[in-house]
């Protein structure tokens, strides 16, 4: 992140200036943060100096605590998301291809999608406890809706011409699904994943904050409760890295899978 734009050799000055223009505000903010913290203008508890936060981040990373909690969070979020992806795509594609399935799921999706899914956390604590299983099911239920709706809508929008052409050439129903419908609907399905991914993290963090049981959300809230504000900031830095990493990963996968579009 700290890309200091030294004009080394000065071979491409305009590019260096561009980079400088786009990051100078961040550099100013970070320097201000450190100075304000060091001078004690804002109480240490509210805003520890950046160096203290980075030191804490490194300490937590080296003693393995950060990595272990990040692993717990990612494990819960991604397993839940994987379950929702499989079920959501199946239900979505079937809804678009079959009237009976559509008739059954349409009102359920209409009612289920607007529920602020976070409000069900206490219910899942009641039904499944506060362990990993409960969190994974919660993530799966919460992320099912965007995946299913995007899969359904994009499958519906597959051009009938494509399907007719394939049928005319004697494509079987099964091959039609895998070779024509699914590839044509793939961009929309991936959009569903891209909406669901941040949601899976949101659900996991909040569940961990409410119910504990380790994970970055629990690490953060423990920092608040024990008045160690560096730990809160350090956990947020880790969350930012995870968010950026997963976002990049999905974009990369998308461009690889959809290179033909």
């Amino acid at each position: 992140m700290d890309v200091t734009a030294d004009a080394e050799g000065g071979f491409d000055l305009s590019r260096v200036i561009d980079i400088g223009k786009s990051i100078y505000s961040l550099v100013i903010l970070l320097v201000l943060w450190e100075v304000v913290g060091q001078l004690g203008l804002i109480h240490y508890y509210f805003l520890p100096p950046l160096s203290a936060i980075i030191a804490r981040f490194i300490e937590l990373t080296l003693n393995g605590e950060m990595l272990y909690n990040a692993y717990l969070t990612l494990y819960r979020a991604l397993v839940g998301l994987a379950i929702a992806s499989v079920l959501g795509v199946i239900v979505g594609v079937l809804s678009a291809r079959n009237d009976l399935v559509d008739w059954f799921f349409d009102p359920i999706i209409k009612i289920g999608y607007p529920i602020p899914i976070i409000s069900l956390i206490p219910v899942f604590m009641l039904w499944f406890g506060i362990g990993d299983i409960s969190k994974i099911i919660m993530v799966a239920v919460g992320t099912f809706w965007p995946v299913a709706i995007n899969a359904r809508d994009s499958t519906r929008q597959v051009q009938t011409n494509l399907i007719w052409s394939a049928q005319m050439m004697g494509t079987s129903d099964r091959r039609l699904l895998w070779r024509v419908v699914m590839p044509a609907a793939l961009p929309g399905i991936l959009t569903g994943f891209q909406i669901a991914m941040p949601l899976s993290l949101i659900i996991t963090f909040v569940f961990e904050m409410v119910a504990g049981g380790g994970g970055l959300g629990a690490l953060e809230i423990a920092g608040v409760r024990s008045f160690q504000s560096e730990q809160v900031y350090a956990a947020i830095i880790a969350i930012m890295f995870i968010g950026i990493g997963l976002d990049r990963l999905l974009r990369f996968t998308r461009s690889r899978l959809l290179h033909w579009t």
Partner: protein
Amino acid sequence: MRHATSRRIEGLPAPIQGVAQTLVDWIPLGILVLLWELASGTVVAEAVLPPPTTVVGEIVELIVTGDVFSHLFISLFRIGVGLGLSILAGVLLGVGMARSDPVENFFDIFLSMTYPIPKTALVPLAILWLGVGTEAAILIVFLACLLPIVLNSYNAAVDVDQNLVWSAQMMGTSDREMLYKVIFPATVPEIMTGIRQAVPIAFIALVSAELIASNQGIGYLILTSGQIGNYPTMFANIVIISAVAFVAVRGFEETRDRVLVWT
């Protein structure tokens, strides 16, 4: 958006057909509610899954006694202020970034760095700064709603038809008038899209903040009634906040369609 592949009923007089269609459309939900009613107390303990009739009774009681309203109003207040501030700041920031390079250079990096952070992960930070309560909830709602509004108004303001701008300039419109009379009106539809995306996010942010950092509000009520084992109240409040969220989204869409007659 309305799709008509599900079972269509035909050959009935028009008014009856409409009613019959609605009934047929919602049968699956009826089946689910019926199963829930039957399962409660037989397959699963009634305490763990109170039957719908009990939950509805509880909702009616909460409304009749008025117990729910103080919490509901607090929640709505938090949503209203948080969302309102994010619309104000988001439109200013989005349009400003689109029309001015220095503004864009200054803010762009912050937006791209905070974009991948789920804003609910900032609830502990809000507690740190503002303590437990309304301010923390407003801050989280504000932050969660800000980005979709900034992004949509930015894209809209970048895409404003250059012909419009030129025509206005030719007729001698000042820079300031340009902003208010040309740029803003042209971006309104996309700003509405941004707000439409922000409303459900606002509810998720609100409930998250109220579960973790509040001693009032519907989210708080859901958590505490669950903790003391008052499950009908817990379910009733979940239904209430879901209904409010649903009405908010639908109400916004209806209003938008009525206001944006020129699109």
